[in-house]
């Protein structure tokens, strides 16, 4: 329940500043300043925008299918926000530690598609319809490499529980599982035990180096999942005006944007949990210099919460920043290039990775 409230508030605040950050990053990349006038260094620009959006008239096109048009943004937002339910924020603070956490997340996020379809169809606009169809085709296509990467991690971790996946990447693993052992690159034969070293060495990207590639694939697919450039053909401004949210205005539009940024954060959190050690510090213990322990409190203590939240959020925000960086670097992919990338490159690669990580898992035992 607290996690629910926390994520709701955090999501709102995060979105406000993510929009600001996005504008700043894009500006810096293009040798501009970005917003400068509202507030110090333009800090309040998004707040002002938000106020404006909320005051705006809620325009519903006359010919729109109102039964579909109106609830669509809510459904999109709900689908994204429901995903936050299973995220562990710190070692002892998580929404639901459901056994099937990651699986649930994948499923609930796919509800997003329904909202987009409703919005696209209900708007009674060709741009919205095309945008929705492209968006759905894209999301479904990229769900496959995304899901397969999740499968890889699950095979390495042997659990679907997100909290447990994170614990496995921490120095506290043996607190919940006394027999726990971590080895460098996950291979026992190497003989370098890292259970108590922690840090970056126990992150999934190093527990199984294959995950490095996996992480890249996951990141690319997650960009597509959240309709971010360079995979933003669903809302390609130059051809589709605004894609599925062309007809929306005011608060409903704000909700759609909120879910887009929420989705960015969600996939970043997911990537952090699955590959980058979740709430764990990246500093390893080196001999008697217990960097890992110093920079991550014991689970359940206040320090544990603070450090955990700090690492988790800063890692996720870093990934969000990378998403923005990527967005303002690459040109938009064409539809056929998009599908090519998914079906000819990412999917085969991820299937191969699934196979390889199964083998890796055998080596880990």
């Amino acid at each position, binding site marked *: 329940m607290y996690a629910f409230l926390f994520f709701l508030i955090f999501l709102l605040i995060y979105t406000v500043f993510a929009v600001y950050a996005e504008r700043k990053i894009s500006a810096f990349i293009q040798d501009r300043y970005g917003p400068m006038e509202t507030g110090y260094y333009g800090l309040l620009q998004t707040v002002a925008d938000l106020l404006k959006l909320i005051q705006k008239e809620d325009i519903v096109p006359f010919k729109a299918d109102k*039964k579909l048009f109106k609830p669509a943004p809510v459904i999109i937002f709900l689908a994204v926000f429901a995903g936050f339910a299973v995220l562990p924020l710190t070692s002892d603070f998580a929404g639901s530690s459901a056994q*099937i956490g990651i*699986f*649930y997340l994948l499923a609930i996020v796919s509800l997003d598609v*329904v909202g987009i*379809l409703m919005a696209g169809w209900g708007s009674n606009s060709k741009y919205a*319809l095309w945008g929705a169809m492209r968006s*759905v085709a894209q999301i479904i296509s990229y*769900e*496959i490499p995304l899901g397969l990467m999740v499968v890889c991690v699950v095979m390495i971790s042997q659990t679907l529980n997100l909290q447990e996946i994170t614990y496995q990447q921490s120095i506290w693993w043996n607190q919940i599982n006394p027999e726990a052992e971590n080895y460098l690159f996950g291979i026992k034969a190497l003989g370098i035990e890292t259970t108590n070293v922690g840090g970056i060495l126990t992150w999934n990207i190093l527990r199984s180096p294959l995950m490095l590639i996996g992480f890249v694939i996951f990141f690319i697919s997650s960009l597509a999942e959240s309709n971010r450039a360079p995979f933003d053909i669903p809302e390609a401004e130059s051809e589709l005006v605004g894609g599925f949210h062309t007809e929306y205005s005011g608060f409903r539009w704000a909700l759609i944007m909120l879910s887009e940024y929420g989705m960015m954060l969600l996939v970043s959190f997911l990537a952090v949990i699955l590959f980058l050690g979740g709430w764990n510090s990246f500093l390893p213990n080196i001999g008697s210099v217990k960097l890992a322990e110093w920079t991550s409190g014991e689970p359940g203590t206040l320090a544990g919460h603070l450090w955990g939240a700090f690492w988790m959020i800063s890692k996720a925000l870093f990934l969000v920043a990378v998403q923005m960086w990527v967005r303002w670097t690459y040109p938009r992919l064409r539809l056929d290039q998009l599908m090519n990338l998914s079906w000819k490159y990412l999917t085969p690669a991820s299937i191969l990775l699934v196979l390889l990580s199964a083998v890796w898992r055998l080596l880990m035992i």
Partner: protein
Amino acid sequence: MELEAILFYFFAGITAFSVLFIAVTRNILYAAFALILTFIGVAGLFVFMGAEFIAITQILVYVGGILVLLVFGIMLTHRLKGQKLKTDRYQMLFGFLISAGIFGLFIQSIHSGAFSNLPWVDQEYSQEVELKSFGLSLMTDYVLAFEVIGILLLVALIGAVRIAGNARKEGTDAA
């Protein structure tokens, strides 16, 4: 417990309502979206019966896959707005009689059937289904069925793509 009961009836209500809505509505698209609601309701009920995995699979496959396919099908067969989405109904009387008759039959048999006396029924509800045991039994006892299903799915996938040809590539999305 109270909350759980309320939630249970809530999901059951959603399911029943949306199912009836499908029967009544004449708009295919609304029917499709009501079907989503049905599936979500059923998924919720699955959770209450300790079948979390099935519930999630239900959402993932039905909502994320089949329904999107359905809506795409509707969009493609209705020429992207060219045609009305209404469907005619016919043989209302027969249809209603038959289904109502079968419904009555079901109700009667459910009431008269003493399920709790079946030999394999364990009276203690074991709520938590271990995900591990689920996976294990899937990969041991039912491995043949599992493989067959996999192949079936693959064949269906290829078949769908082959049938639809260039017209639609979404056939592959069902996977």
